C-alpha cells in the first residue's frame, strides 16, 4: 500500500532541472574591506598592532627605549613567561586552564639543581630527569582532568599548591648559588648564554622561545593532533562523538604543558644563574601566562586563537612594563597602569574584531 507515499511526494517532480551551480556572490573589493577581512581571519594581527603602537608610544616618550639593548632586555624578560604561555595556550585551547604552570617550572628547576648537587648526578642526566618529572606533574593534571573528569581550574588549583609546597619541602628552602653551578654543572645554565651580534646580547633562551612558538604554531595548524586540540576545546562532546579520543588528547596536552613548564624551569636556571625554590614564578607564573594568552586573543572558552597571538601578548606586557618603568613611573603606579593597559589592550582587540565582523 505504498502507493499513497508516491502521491505524497509527487510535488518533488518540480525538482527536475534544479540548478547545480555553487552559489556565488560578488565580493566587496575595497581596500578597507580587505583589511577588515584580513584582521578577521588573522587572529594574531590585532595583538601585533597593539604591540607596534605601544612600542612607538614608548619610543617617543622615553629616549632610551628605542635602543637595541632595551629591546633585547624586553625579549629576555619575557622568555620564561613566553614558554609558560606556550604551555598555557595549549591548555586554554582545550577550554582548560592551568594554574600550576609556574609551580611546575620552579619545582623542575629545583629538581634539576638538587639532583645534580645533592645526589651528584651529572647535569645532563639531571636535566632529563627534571624534564621527565615536570612532564609527570603535567600528566597528573591531565589524568585528573580527562579521566576523573574534574574541572581543570580546581585540579590545577590543587596541584599548584601541592607542587609548590612539595618544592619547598624537597628543597628545604635552599638556594644553589650561581658560582657553584657555573663551576660544577654549566649545562644547567645553558640557556643563559648569548650571542652578541653588533654588541647586542640576545640570549639563547629567546631563540628557544621563538622556536617553540614556531613549532607549536605548525603543529596546531597543520597536523591532525592540532586540529583535535581545537575540536576538543570547541565542543568536547561533539569531538568525542565525531571520533576524537578526547581523554587521551587531554592527557597529552597537559603532559606536554608540563614538559614545556619544565623547559621553562631549565631556562630559569640559565637566566637567573642560581636555583631558588622561592622564585616568584611559582606564585605569579600562572597569572602572567594567562595574561599573555588572553591579551594574545586566545579565548578562555577554548577552541579559538593562535599561539602566535600569545607571543605578541607576552611581548605587549613586557613592553608596557619596561616602557612604564623607563618613563619613570613608581612601582605602585606601574602596577596600576599595567592594570589599565591590560584592559585597554583587550578592549582595542575586541573593538577591531567587532568592526571587522
Amino acid at each position, binding site marked *: *500500500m*505504498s502507493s499513497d*507515499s508516491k502521491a505524497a511526494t509527487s510535488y518533488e517532480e518540480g525538482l527536475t532541472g534544479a*540548478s547545480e551551480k555553487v*552559489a*556565488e*556572490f560578488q565580493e566587496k573589493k575595497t581596500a578597507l574591506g580587505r583589511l577588515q577581512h584580513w584582521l578577521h581571519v588573522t587572529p594574531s594581527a590585532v595583538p601585533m598592532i597593539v604591540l607596534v603602537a605601544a612600542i612607538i608610544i614608548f619610543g617617543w616618550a622615553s629616549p632610551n627605549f628605542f635602543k637595541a639593548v632595551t629591546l633585547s632586555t624586553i625579549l629576555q624578560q619575557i622568555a620564561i613567561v613566553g614558554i609558560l604561555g606556550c604551555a598555557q595556550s595549549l591548555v586554554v585551547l582545550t577550554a582548560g586552564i592551568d594554574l600550576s604552570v609556574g609551580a611546575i617550572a620552579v619545582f623542575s628547576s629545583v629538581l634539576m639543581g638538587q639532583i645534580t648537587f645533592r645526589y651528584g648526578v651529572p647535569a645532563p642526566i639531571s636535566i632529563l630527569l627534571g624534564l621527565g618529572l615536570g612532564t609527570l606533574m603535567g600528566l597528573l593534571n591531565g589524568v585528573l582532568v580527562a579521566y576523573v573528569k574534574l574541572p581543570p581550574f580546581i585540579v590545577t588549583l590543587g596541584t599548584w599548591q601541592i607542587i609548590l609546597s612539595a618544592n619547598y619541602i624537597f628543597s628545604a628552602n635552599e638556594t644553589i648559588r650561581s658560582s657553584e653551578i657555573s663551576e660544577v654543572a654549566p649545562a644547567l645554565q645553558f640557556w643563559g648564554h648569548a650571542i652578541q651580534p653588533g654588541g647586542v646580547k640576545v640570549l639563547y633562551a629567546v631563540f628557544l622561545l621563538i622556536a617553540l612558538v614556531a613549532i607549536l604554531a605548525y603543529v596546531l595548524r597543520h597536523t591532525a593532533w592540532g586540529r583535535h586540540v581545537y*575540536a576538543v576545546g570547541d565542543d568536547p562532546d*561533539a569531538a568525542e562523538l565525531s*571520533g576524537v579520543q578526547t581523554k587521551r588528547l587531554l592527557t597529552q596536552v597537559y603532559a606536554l604543558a608540563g614538559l614545556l613548564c619544565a623547559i621553562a624551569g631549565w631556562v630559569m636556571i640559565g637566566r637567573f644563574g642560581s636555583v631558588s625554590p622561592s622564585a616568584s614564578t611559582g606564585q605569579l607564573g600562572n597569572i602572567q601566562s594567562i595574561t599573555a594568552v588572553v591579551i594574545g586573543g586566545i579565548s578562555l572558552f577554548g577552541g579559538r586563537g593562535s599561539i602566535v597571538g600569545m607571543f605578541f601578548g607576552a611581548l605587549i606586557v613586557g613592553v608596557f612594563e619596561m616602557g612604564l618603568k623607563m618613563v619613570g613611573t613608581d612601582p605602585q603606579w606601574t602596577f596600576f597602569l599595567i592594570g589599565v593597559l591590560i584592559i585597554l589592550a583587550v578592549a582595542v582587540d575586541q573593538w577591531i574584531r567587532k568592526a571587522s565582523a
Partner: protein
Amino acid sequence: MSQEPLLKARGLYKRYGKVTALNNCDFDLMPGEILAVIGDNGAGKSSLIKALSGAVQPDEGEITLEGRRVQFSSPLEARGEGIECVYQTLAMSPALSIADNMFMGRELRKPGIMGKWFRQLDRPAMEKFAREKLSELGLMTIQNINQAVETLSGGQRQGVAVARAAAFGSKVVILDEPTAALGVKESRRVLELIRDVRARGIPIILISHNMPHVFEVADRIHIHRLGSRLCVIRPQDYSMSDAVAFMTGAKVPEAAEVAA
C-alpha cells in the same frame, strides 16, 4: 525471516532520574536492509540509537553485533566496529571548517616526507573530497568550503553531517532525523544517498518523522512507543495512516502483525 540480525538488542532499559527513556526495548537490524524507526517525540528513539552506538550506556539489557555480544563504552569504539552515526545534535565543532569536521579523527596526511615525518595535513585533498560529497548531496549554497561550521545554516550543517556518515560508514549507518532541517531538494538527495549506501550492502537505520519518505525507502518499519518497540511492520502491508495510528496509540497492533 530466517537470517540472523546483524545488530540486535534485547531488554534495554535507560532511566534518567524520574524519566524512563527506554523501557525493556528490543531491536533487530537485518543485513542489508533499510530499517526505519518511527515514534512520537520523546518516545525514546534517540535514546535507543545512542545506546546502540555507544553514546550512552544502557542500564540493563544486551546488544549483539554479528552474533557477538558487544558493550561500547564510547562512540569511538562503535566507530571502530564500523557503526557510523549522525546524531540529532549533529556532533560538529562549530569553530572548525567543514573539511576539518568531515575528517575529524581520520585526517589525510600529505604524501612523502611532509606527511610522514612532519605529519602535515593534506588540506587540498580533504577540501576536494568534502566539496565532492557536498555536491553529491546537492548542497550548492555552501559558498566557501573553509567556512566555520557555526556559520552554516541549519540545513547546511545537517547536510555536512549526513555526507560524513555516508562517506565513512562501513558496517551500519545510523541516521537520526537526517532530513529534519533539509529542504525539498536536499531531502531527496539524502533519500537517494540512503539507497546508494544500501546498494553497497550496508544496512541503515533511519529515524524520521516524514511518513512519505519512510514508506518510500524503508524495508521494515520499527514502531517505537513509550520507550519500547511496539511492533515492526512492512510498508507494503500497512498504510501510512495505520502506522501513524500505531505510534500515537490510536490503534493497537495485533500480536500477529509484528513482522519478525
